[in-house]
Each structure stands twice: as C-alpha cells, then as structure tokens.
C-alpha cells in the first residue's frame, strides 16, 4: 500500500512537469498552429538561469529559491519573445519552416549551454524543507513532489481563468477558430500570437525552475528529455486542448511509474509510447481534441 501511494504521488509530480511543459505547447499550437521543438531548450536555459541565480547565494533559503524561480520564468518569457519576433513571425504561414527553425534553435541552444557550462550536471541547492518529506496515508512523500503538484494545479487554474474569464482569453478562443475574422473585428491577432508564444515561454521557464528543483541539478539535455513526454501528452490529450494535456499527463505518468515499478525499470517509456500509438489508432484527434478548437 505504501509503495502504491508513493508511486502514485510521485507519478503525479512527474505528470506536473509534463503538464506544465505541454500546457505551453498546447496554448501555442492552439492559437498559432505552431509546433515548437524549441520549448525544451527554453526549459533548459531557464533552469540554468535559476541555477546561476541560486548559486550566488551563500545558503539555500526559500527566498533565494523564489528569486531563482522568478528569474527562470523571466528568462523563459524573454527567449520566447525574441524567438517569436525574430524567427516565428517572419516565417508566418510556413509551418514546416517554423518547425525546422525551432529544431535548429533547440540544437543551437543546447550546444551553447554545453559549450559554456559543460555537459555535466550542476547541483542546485534547495532549502531543507524541500528535501524533507510529509506523511500522507502512512507514506512519506517528498515535499518537492507536493510542490510540483501544487504548481501544476495553479498553472491549470491560471490558464482556465485566462481563457475563460478575460478578454484576452476570448481573443485566443476566437483566434483558434478563425484568426482572420478576429482581425476583421479590429483586434491585433499578431500581437496575440506574440503574447501567447511568450506565455508558453513563461511556462517553460517555470517548468525549468521546477525541474531543476526536482532533480536538484541542471544538465544541457534536461529540457529535451522532458519535451518528448510533453509532446506525447499533447498528442494523447488532443492538440490544442489544455484539459486533454492535463488528463494525458497524469495518465501517462501513472502508467510510466507503475510500469517502471511493477514490470521493469525502463518499461515505463515503452508503455507510454504504446499508449500514444493506441490512442492515435482509436481516437486520432486525442482524448479531448476537437477540430479547430481549444478546450
């Protein structure tokens, strides 16, 4: 029982990372129809920014950590903004070129990070309470897992509020259906694209900080490793569906963790890929995917 509870809550922590990365991808794809492979390197770069900030402090405190998180979010947003303005916008309407450009950015940024800070892992100091555990249902659950879950829930709520309760969300939901008509109503859709791409970057930055805390370290390929699972969550959940991405992230992480524990270490990755294949065969649009719709 204890093992099961630990696995489930650990899986939810992992699902949180998948979801936070996938949610940014989903928002960007939902409005702009851009599949960006640069999202993983945005996460990595943001994690490195968090590490650079945190290591400037002598002792690991909560305040230090928060500063690192804010710096990572800002870095993610900034690199996304620059990418949208300099790469995505000039290639507007050329989906293949956009996709290939983001692959190029990803390769270049990872190479830059490796060239600057080396290929090895750098440790990230976290406050003592984040290394401790909390008893839940008789099982000691690492606090970092609970932080990840809380962060993912907060992100989900924030996105739902943004899309459902604000004028900007209205523009996004309408733009997903028909961006041309939105512009004919006097709304600058291009600016909405830029804002949405930047929000995706902010989420990648947040994910970068959380991933650095979770693994208590940063490596040049940490973002790309997570990006694969985020893409699978995006596809299984349904491209452009935030709710679908959340459900898929939880389902995939649970399946992955349970398979790793009960079948064999490494079996989880195979199970995830199989689940994606089965989903595509049975329901090609994904769990909650709809044509031209952001749920």
């Amino acid at each position, binding site marked *: 029982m204890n093992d099961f509870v630990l696995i489930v809550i650990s899986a939810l922590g992992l699902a949180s990372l998948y979801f936070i990365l996938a949610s940014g991808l989903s928002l960007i794809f939902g409005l702009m129809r851009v599949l960006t492979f640069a999202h993983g390197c945005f996460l990595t770069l943001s994690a490195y920014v968090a590490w650079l900030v945190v290591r400037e402090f002598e002792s690991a405190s909560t305040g230090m950590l928060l500063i690192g998180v804010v710096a990572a979010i800002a870095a993610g947003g900034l690199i996304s903004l620059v990418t949208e303005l300099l790469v995505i916008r000039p290639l507007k309407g050329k989906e293949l070129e956009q996709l290939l450009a983001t692959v190029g950015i990803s390769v270049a940024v990872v190479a830059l990070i490796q060239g600057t800070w080396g290929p090895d892992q750098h440790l990230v100091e976290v406050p003592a309470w984040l290394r401790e555990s909390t008893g839940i249902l008789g099982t000691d659950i690492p606090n970092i897992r609970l932080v990840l879950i809380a962060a993912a829930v907060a992100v989900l709520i924030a996105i739902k509020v943004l899309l459902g309760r604000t004028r900007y969300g*209205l523009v996004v*939901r309408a733009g*997903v*259906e028909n961006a*041309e008509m939105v512009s*004919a*109503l006097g*709304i*600058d859709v291009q600016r909405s694209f830029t804002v949405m791409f930047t929000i995706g970057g902010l989420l990648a930055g947040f994910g970068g900080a959380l991933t650095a805390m979770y693994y208590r370290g940063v490596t040049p390929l940490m973002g790309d490793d997570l990006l694969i699972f985020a893409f699978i969550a995006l596809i299984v959940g349904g491209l452009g569906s935030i709710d679908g991405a959340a459900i898929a992230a939880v389902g995939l992480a649970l399946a992955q963790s349970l398979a790793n524990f009960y079948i064999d270490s490494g079996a989880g990755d195979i199970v995830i890929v199989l689940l994606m294949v089965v989903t595509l065969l049975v329901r090609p649009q994904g769990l909650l995917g709809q044509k031209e*719709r952001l749920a």
Partner: protein
Amino acid sequence: MSRGPAHAEPTLRLTDVHAWIGQSSILHGIDFDVPARAVTVLLGRNGVGKTSILRSILGFLRCEGEIRFDGMDLTKLPTHRVALSGIGYIPEDRDVFHGLTVAENLRLAERRGATVDYGRVYDLFPDLAKRSRQLAGTLSGGQQQMVSVARALLNDNQLLLIDEPTKGLSPRLVTELVTSLEKVVQDTTVLLVEQNLAAARRLADHVVVIDQGRVVADESADSMFGDGERLRDMLGVGSARAARGPHS
C-alpha cells in the same frame, strides 16, 4: 430604395486596384466610388472578384493601387487597423465563433475606448438577447447571420462591407434579413455583395458590375435595374425576373 443624392465626396474610393491570391492575379485595375450614406451593390457572376474586392479593402489579399477611406490609403494598413478606422465586415459565411456564446461573440466585437450600441442591436434582433448564453455554433443559419450582422453594428462604423448576407437562408429568413438590413442602411454607407437580385434591388442605390476582375458597369440602381435585358446580358442569369419587382 434611393435615399436622395449621395454626398459629393465618396466614403470609399478604389483606384486602379490589382489583387492576387498567391501567384494568381484576380483583380485587374478596379476603379469605383462608394458614395456616402448610400448602398453600393457589387453584382457579377460567381468567381468574378466581388468577394475579393471586399477582402482587398480589408487587407486580407495582397493588392496594389489605392483604396482611399477617410483620408487614408487602406492598402498600407493591416486588417485590424482597417477595421478600427471605422469599417465593419459581415462575411460571406457568417464566420461566427462557434465555441463562443452569442454574448461573447458580441463582446469580442466591442472596440476599446469606443461607444458600443447594444440597444440598436437588440432592437433589430431581439432574439439575440434571449439567446445570449447560447453557443453560436448551436444557432440556426439565420440566427448566426443575425450575430454576424450584430457584430458589425455594435460599433459606430462609417462603412459596412457586407458579403452575400442572404446566402444559404430560406426565403422567409431572406425577407426578414433584408427588412432588417433596410433599417441598418438608413444611416450607414454600405458596400454589398449580393447574388440575390431581388434583395439587391431592394437595398441598392448604386450598382457596380464586375466581370473577370474588372468593372464593366457603374451606375445608379434605378438605371441598372430599369434595364433588365442589359443586366441579364451582363450577369448571364434570369435577372429580368428580379428586375420586375422586389419580391420575386
């Protein structure tokens, strides 16, 4: 439905407008004026460039030449700037946002800092007030057309571009919609694309006939609809029947 002589200065003037979709040239030097406080109807067979003229004005198509509105050349502006300059658009296929409610569709059309007139909209289409929380995608074709028209009327536009508003509607709905449009056009300048000649005749002050991306006639509605034979020749349809009366 003449509303008296048009003002001397046109609201919109197209001068030598050429437009392209991809590499294909579709408009070949369009010249005409849209007089103020009048309804100018674009007539022509399918595919001759009527909708493309509206889309060029809105900045959806790559075009050259001059499209002058309120002292500005619209060819230099992005679409949202064209709309904000005071141009409302009612598209051919309604293009309401299916995943938004009626109220959200209208709220999206509100322009920041501008006065919006919900009273005018609900006076014309009282049904919309009752259906404000209904998803636009679940409305009938006629109701969706009301939403589409209402979006354009919410703001105080100087010019309305209306593309085949009666397309796909039942005869009863066409009659209702044209009656509503007759009220709308009382105090607004309108450039209308309409294939339903009976509806066009009821609304038009001025007629521009397009063929193969060029203007082939530009004259008053009375003159154009008064010569059914010529109109039939130009359009290649049974326009003589339409020329006989507004309810044919």
